[in-house]
């Protein structure tokens, strides 16, 4: 029962200004790195740092609008759903993320 009850906590990862506009930072994590992206404004998005195509590190891609272009083969992945733009197919895992009083918080369920 204890495991089921495990509390989902918001974990602070950095200040918003630590992430460049149209950029990303990598959060190291045993279960696989997480890429935390920022758009041209103050919105953040968090995806598993693995492109659904060949596992490329999405955090290293060029961010535009609410998408990122994977640095390895140029797949475009939506930041809001983690899914590849058609006609490519595939999704990467998303993580809840929020910005509160200038701090970027990530929710990790595992």
């Amino acid at each position, binding site marked *: 029962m204890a495991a089921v009850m495990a509390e989902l906590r918001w974990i602070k990862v950095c200040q918003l200004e630590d992430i460049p506009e149209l950029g990303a930072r990598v959060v190291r994590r045993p279960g696989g790195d997480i890429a935390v992206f920022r758009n041209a404004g103050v919105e953040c998005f968090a995806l598993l740092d693995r492109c659904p195509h060949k596992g490329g590190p999405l955090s290293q891609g*060029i961010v535009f609008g609410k998408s990122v272009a994977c*640095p390895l083969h140029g797949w475009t992945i939506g930041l809001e759903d983690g899914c590849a733009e058609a006609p490519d197919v595939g999704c990467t895992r998303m993580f809840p993320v929020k910005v509160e009083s200038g701090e970027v918080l990530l929710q*990790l369920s595992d």
Partner: protein
Amino acid sequence: MVGNGMAGVRTLEELLKIAPDVYDITVFGAEPHANYTRILLSPVLAGEMTIRDIMLNDVDWYEKNKVGLHLGKKIVKIERGARKVVAADGTAELYDRLLLATGSNPFILPVPGKDLEGVITYRDIGDTNAMIAASKKYRHAVVIGGGLLGLEAANGLKLRGMNVTVVHLMEWLMERQLDCTAAQLLRQSLEAKGLQFLLQKQTAEIVGNENGRVRAVRFEDGSEIAADLVVMAVGIRPNTELAESAGLHCSRGIVVNDTMQTFDPKIYAVGECAAHRGTAYGLVAPLFEMAKVCANHLANFGIGRYAGSVTSTKLKVTGIDLFSAGDFMGGAGTEDIVLNDAQGGVYKRIVLRDNRVVGAVLYGDTVDGSWYFQLLRDRQNVAEIRDHLMFGQNHLGNTGHQGQSRAVAMADAMEVCGCNGVPKGVIVKAIKEKGLFTLEDVRKHTKASSSCGSCTGLVEQILASTVGGAYQPQEAKLKPMCGCTDHTHEEVRAAIRDGLFEGKRLLSISAAMRFLEWRTPNRCASCRPAINYYLICAWPHRAKDDPQSRFINERAHANIQKDGTFSVVPRMFGGMTTPDQLRRIADVADKYKIPTVKVTGGQRIDLLGVKKEDLPAVWRDLDMPSGHAYAKALRTVKTCVGSEWCRFGVQDSTNMGIELEKALWRMYAPHKVKMAVSGCPRNCAESGIKDVGVIGVDSGWEIYVAGNGGIKTEVAQFLVKVKTREEVLEYAGAFLQLYREEARYLERTVHYVRRVGLDTVKKKIVEDAESRKALWARLQYALEGEPDPWKERAAGKDRVEYETLETAEA
């Protein structure tokens, strides 16, 4: 929408793509079928494909996109006042916007007997089925009309076992697409397939039997041939009946403006029914261009104009290769280049006017059709390539596809794209099933030719042979930079150079994008790096470089590898190193547990598998300048040992290379730049395949430019011979500055020089000393004080780029 054909449905697809929610859409189609590709009816008739193969959008597509569909209902009335359309069975719908895509009707010769049973036209699935049925019961078919459609019909009927005669009024077949010689070759090969021809024959009457079925065709000269089936394929007429009845202005079609609007602003027309600037098009590619423009306006975007099309033709008769485009007949003021091998069945004629291709007819070998067509549409000056124009683009023997150059000869299982492992069969299948018509589409769906691009020619061939005349090569010159803008690369550069935004120079991406009215503020991954380059090239020391608009390699100053680690290539000027440098490299490799150390093709040492967070420390410990092996910049100057050691060497190539590299390193460019200096004509440094290659000769130095050793080996072209080392620097530097200022982003020197012509380059570099010196001075100014990116980062710049974050719990 009235009409459920290719043009109309393509317009809907474009509209749904950009503005899915603006309209509730209802479609009326007179035929009982969903949307299919009419172009592929001929393969169906020939038994090479089935109806199922040629469907583009089935009924599910309409449902999925919430498009109402009335099949088998012909609209007979438009009430413009009430904004209502009424079908023959009384079904009515109201509209805010009406799209007419009624296509065309086959023209029927007004001769006695035209209404007899067994006299049909060739236009839709119904006609095709009627022909297939007739071929099972009857023997003699007569096709009236020796044009594209007539010949395809005749070929199909012959393959279905009928005895077929083609009757043609004119002197030779396909006179609107072919000259007399090509038509004769065509006729010979069709005769070899068993077709018969009666040329210069005018049909007077179609004679019936007692049952009211056709029995024979009689001509003006009184002669007669037996016929159980007559196919009229003498041309098409835009179907304007409905539009005319509604009082819309029609003249050779429903007259539309450049936004595809008819004289009633609520009514648009696209496709074969529309007359644009006096022309109604019967080929599919122009229809698709219209669809795009029309959808844009329907979506209230209001950008995009249709400016007419130049068309080309391919005949879809299996085993016959035929291509024609433009003004293939020539005439006053034109010249012909002709290759005629009657025995081998190859005929090529290229028509030139003022050193530009204005038309082409190819028979038997159409591999280069799309290339000629591209030259024609781009109005490219071909003076320099004139002597080998006839022998084709010859870009097909590239690497990665087993040296294949002819797509038709390839089996389905053979690999076309060596980068992405795409066999021919997969491409053909995607083209057919998904209804693809452009190279871009094929790239998106199959990935073929989307990486190195060396198989582009093959993919174009496959596309052309699968969809026939529907294939249109891209119009490179008019092509906008990307989907975010309608501006071309050249327009963007000019604006960055000359434009003022709110009274200020354009020195940042955001200013440039606002000035140029970019559609979205920070799109996309392809235009932002280009604009960033144009800015720093036009305004050195002033424009603000934006790391977030650079590809990861240039942002991190190292090369990303497939596992997300990086590679580090320290600079060794001219390929020279020292024991001390080598010791440091060895120590760094040990200290940071770098798994792979390799000597590169450009005579440098590559450390592979470096973790990103180690990069600044690696650079600090190496204490060597950045090799820029990751950048669109000067990579290496490769050298041979030259006269210092070599018994053949006549010049000191090593030191020349060091000087060049010291003068030019840190130079960003539209693409990577590789150089070499050889100390004698034996050319051990391979100067002949470099962007700038220098070869020492006894009396000085020869400079070659625009070579390339990549996907397609391109031999560098001789630019100039000079005497002194200072001249080598000045000429090479001036050429590279010209390339930096004029080439499109991601264009290598070979493509740039091919586009503008070596003569243009020589004029500015060789013949005009003032221009050369100015270019060289501008490059030196741009490089002056440009820091070594590794040194800066080893000292702490951009630290955030290299640091990762940890979660407290990890």
